């Protein structure tokens, strides 16, 4: 029990060290702040504008895999016929 407790403390300290490593790293950034801003704006545009409004999954209009399957197979067969 004592051993397990010690291990938990070691692990908690280790996690704290990693957290502080990242925190200090982010705080000391200069150019990095601009780059992170660009990354965040880019991700926002990609996931909340482009993906949401312009890039829905085409097959998501079908509720089940069986319906998606049926749609795709019909497309593949009919496009060859046409």
């Amino acid at each position, binding site marked *: 029990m004592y051993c397990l407790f010690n291990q938990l403390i070691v692990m908690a300290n280790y996690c704290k060290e990693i957290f502080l*490593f*990242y925190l*200090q*790293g*982010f705080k*000391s*950034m*200069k*150019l*990095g702040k*601009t*780059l*992170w801003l*660009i*990354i965040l704006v*880019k*991700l926002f*545009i*990609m996931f909340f504008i*482009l*993906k949401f409004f*312009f*890039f*829905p*999954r*085409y*097959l998501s209009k079908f509720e089940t895999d069986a319906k*998606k*399957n049926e749609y*795709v*197979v019909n*497309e*593949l*067969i*009919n*496009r*060859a*016929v*046409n």
Partner: protein
Amino acid sequence: MIEQIDTSLIDWSRAQFALTAMYHWLFVPLTLGLGIIMAIMESIYVKTGNPFWKRTALFWIKIFGINFAIGVATGIILEFEFGTNWSNYSWFVGDIFGAPLAIEGIFAFFMEATFIAILFFGWDKVSKRTHLIANWLTGIGATLSALWILIANAWMQYPVGMAFNPDTVRNEMVDFWAIVLSPVAINKFFHTVVSSWIVGAVFVVGVSAWFLLKKREKEFALASIKIASIVGLVASILTLWTGDGSAYQVAQKQPMKLAAMEALYEGGTNIDLIAIGILNSEKKSHNDNIDPHLWAIKIPEFLSILAERKADGYVAGINNLIEGGYPTEEGTALSVEEKIAKGKLAISALARYRIAKKESNQAEQTIQRTILETNFPYFGYGYIKDPADLIPNVALVFYSFRIMVALGVYFIFLFAFALWAGKKNKLDTNRWILKVFVASTPLGYIASQAGWVVAEVGRQPWSIQDILPTSAGVSRLNTGSVQLTFFLFLILFTILFIAEVSIMLKEIKKGPGVSNHSSN
């Protein structure tokens, strides 16, 4: 009556995918190339303890960071497009693509994200050796990310290790290692990665030459040129070797692409390779008997050697591939008309199998499944209306291939000369040499993009070689909406590219002197 797919929809969807992929590929090769150069520089620092090398490595790590930050996640848009614009294709290949892309995601997140944090935040906080390992693992992580994407791409060029399931209408993975270790995937991976090292090396040489032209940071610039030239020269020679391997694989697996690369309409044995050539714009059709070449310098029998490893090896031309009848290892090549018939047989067997399944007719299911499996290698030909549709854009492939090869040869001389001039102390005194180095900076990108044009335009009309053409893989969308998103991407990526160039130029102008032991 099912409405036919508009060809402009296919063209715009292809153009959108090409635009996204090409913009994404502006960032990737520099990441891979700078990754190895900055790791070598830091290795020298750790080995010698000379702070000059730390300062040098720091500068290039900073440039790497800018490129990485602007470029990161631009590839995700390609995945959006798979789901929206290429839904039939995505469904058809889902299981094959899923595994490599999932592994890529895990690698990208855990390896790159973890080690990049140590790379940028870890100076003076972790040991020199740990930081160096993080530096190398950042580059290795990026390379492994590329590996899985390239495996997925190679599978589209040479589909192996899968079985088509007519119940799910999906290709299912049956042999993971056949996909990962396919000769096309291995060659593609090494060729793409080592050629990306060239992009990084040319970039470092160009930027360093700019410092010498400005009479700044002489020691830093000369040392950077030396390291980049060694990396570049080794990479150029390896690229030549892996390029030969790739061309051999193209000859074996995608002969139409090879024929387009050479504008070879009539094949045969002892075929010459065109070193330099101009195409005849009068040639409008594959069977108009007009000479495709206006002017050409040829290397005797070299195409046969390259494609078959023997001077009298048979290389099929575009017309031979359409008409068939030439000898192959399996016997005699089928004509396109015969392949189209087999493709239609496979597709109608799929349709009949589905009907038999609904009717619970087990015997008919077995018969149709056998017909489907026998003819599945030609499945995609069932969508081809005219044999001429199988010919890619010959001029684009022909010239792109020559641009790539010519620049590859030029880089060998460039790096060899840079090493020689550096050794003879002639670099910082010859301004014209430095101007040539600066002017060469974009050429690495041009060669890399040209290589992808050969690989991707050369395999048209296929999304998956012989199995699925783009006309069958594309989603039934409104062309206008694809055009809208095309221009949205054009604007977004152009802004990102301008941001990259302007931030990079600003940091380059500051030079390594102001890095102050921080790459943040």
